C-alpha cells in the first residue's frame, strides 16, 4: 500500500485551526485550573474542617471518575440542570478546568506539606505574624516547589485535551479524525496528528526535568 502524505498538506489549514483550538483550550485551562488548584490545595490543608471536607470531596470525585465521563456530564447534563445553553468552548473550559483544578490541588498540597517544620520554627523565632509566615515564607516556597510537577500536569492536560473531540469540539484530534474519515487515509493523517502532539509535548517533558533540577538545587537547604 502506498502512503500519500500530501493529503495532510491539503488539509493543513484545518489542522492548524484544530491545533489552535487545542492550544487555546489547554492554555485557558492551565491558567484557570492552576489557580483553582492553588486555592483548593490551601483549603485541603486549612484548619477549617468544613473547607477540608468540601475540597476533599471535590478532589476525590474528579480524581476518581474518568475525564471522559466528566466531559460528557458537563456537556450534556450541566446545561439541563442550569437551564442555560453553554457553548462548546465554555463547556470544554469548565470541564477541563475542574479536572485540572483537582489534579493541581494535589500538587500544591504535596508541596505545602514538603516545607519542613523548621521553617515555621524560624518564622516564630523571628516573630513573623501568621499572615507574613504564609505570604512571605510558606507560599513562595510551596509554589516554587510545585513548578516542576505543575509543568507535568500541564503537559498531561495538553494530551488529555484530545478527549474533547469526543463531544464534538473542533480540536486537533477532532479535525484529524474528520479528515481521516473523509479521505480514508487514517495512517497518514493520524500519524501526523500524533507527531504534532509529540513534537509539542516532548520538549515540554524535557523542560520539566531541567526546571526540576534547578528548583531542587535552589531550594536545597
Amino acid at each position, binding site marked *: 500500500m502506498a502512503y500519500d502524505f500530501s493529503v495532510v498538506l491539503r488539509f493543513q489549514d484545518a489542522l492548524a485551526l484544530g491545533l489552535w483550538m487545542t492550544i487555546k483550550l489547554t492554555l485557558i485551562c492551565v491558567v484557570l485550573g492552576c489557580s483553582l488548584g492553588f486555592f483548593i490545595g490551601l483549603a485541603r490543608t486549612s484548619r477549617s474542617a468544613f473547607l477540608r471536607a468540601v475540597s476533599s470531596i471535590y478532589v476525590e470525585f474528579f480524581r476518581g471518575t474518568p475525564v471522559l465521563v466528566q466531559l460528557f456530564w458537563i456537556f450534556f447534563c450541566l446545561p439541563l440542570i442550569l437551564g442555560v445553553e453553554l457553548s462548546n468552548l465554555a463547556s470544554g473550559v469548565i470541564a477541563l478546568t475542574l479536572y485540572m483544578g483537582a489534579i493541581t490541588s494535589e500538587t500544591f498540597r504535596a508541596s505545602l506539606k514538603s516545607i519542613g517544620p523548621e521553617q515555621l*520554627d524560624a518564622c516564630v*523565632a523571628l516573630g513573623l505574624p501568621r499572615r507574613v509566615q504564609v505570604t512571605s515564607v510558606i507560599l513562595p516556597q510551596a509554589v516554587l516547589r510545585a513548578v516542576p510537577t505543575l509543568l507535568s500536569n500541564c503537559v498531561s492536560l495538553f494530551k488529555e485535551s484530545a478527549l474533547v473531540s469526543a463531544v464534538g469540539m473542533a480540536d486537533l484530534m477532532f479535525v484529524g479524525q474528520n479528515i481521516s474519515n473523509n479521505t480514508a487515509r487514517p495512517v497518514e493523517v493520524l500519524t501526523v496528528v500524533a507527531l504534532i502532539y509529540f513534537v509539542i509535548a516532548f520538549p515540554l517533558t524535557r523542560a520539566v526535568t531541567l526546571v526540576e533540577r534547578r528548583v531542587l538545587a*535552589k*531550594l536545597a*537547604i
Partner: protein
Amino acid sequence: MTMSFSAPLVKIKSLHKSYGPHIQVLKGLDIEMKPGERVVVIGPSGGGKSTLLRVMMGLEKIDSGSISFAGKPYISSEAADKKTVIDTEVRRSIGMVFQHYTLFPHLNVIQNLILAPCKVRGENKASATKRAQALLERFGLGAKASAYPAQLSGGQKQRVAIARALMLDPKLMLFDEVTSALDPELVAEVEQVILQLAAQDMPMMIVTHDMWFAKNIASRVIFCAGGVVVEDGPPEQVLGSPKEERTRDFIERVFHIRH
C-alpha cells in the same frame, strides 16, 4: 532597659513540659539568669536541653510553670484549661539559632535578614538593608549579600542565621547546638561570631557539646539531666571539678570522647 542590676533577666519557675502523656521531658526546672550572663547548658542527649530553649522561644506548649523576661512573665500555663499563654511582644526580645539550617531558601542573604525587620517592625527597606550589610561585613559575609542559602557553606549559613536573628536587636540570644551539623573545619568560624557577640555582653543561653567552646564562652554552666537542673555554677566548677557525681560522670565521658 531600666532595671536594677541584680534583677534576673530570665526567671524560669518550676517548668514542666511533656510530649504527649508518656514523655515527660522537663520536670520542674528552675533557672534564674542575670543580665549579661552567658549560660551554657550541657547534659546527656535527650535530657531536654533543646526542649528548654524551644519553650523559652515560645515554640512549645508547656504543662505548668512560668518564664519571665526582664520582670515580665511571658510564658505561663493557665491552670484551668492547661493552655499555654505566650506574650508575643515580650518574646520578640529573644532571638534563636537552631541546629538545623533554617534560612529561607527562596530568599537571598539580604532578603533573609531584612524580612522580619521590614514586616514586623515596619522598618523601611533601605535602612534595613544598610544595617544588614553592615552586620554581614562584621561577620565576614559582605560578599555573600546576594547569594542564596543553597550557595553557602554550612558555616556561612549559620553565621547568616545569627545575623538574621540580630537584625531584631534581641536582648537575649538562644543557641541550640548551632555547630553540631557542621563539618569540623567550619565550627570555628561560627563559634568566633558567637564569641564576638559575647565580647559585646550579649546575654545568651547556649546548648553545646563542644567543651572547649563551653569553657571559653560561659560565665555560668548548667548541667541538665533527667529534666531537672543537676548542677549549676561557674564554668571552672561545673566543667573543672563538678560537685555532683552525675555531672562528673558526664564530663569525664564527654572529655574522654573528645580527646
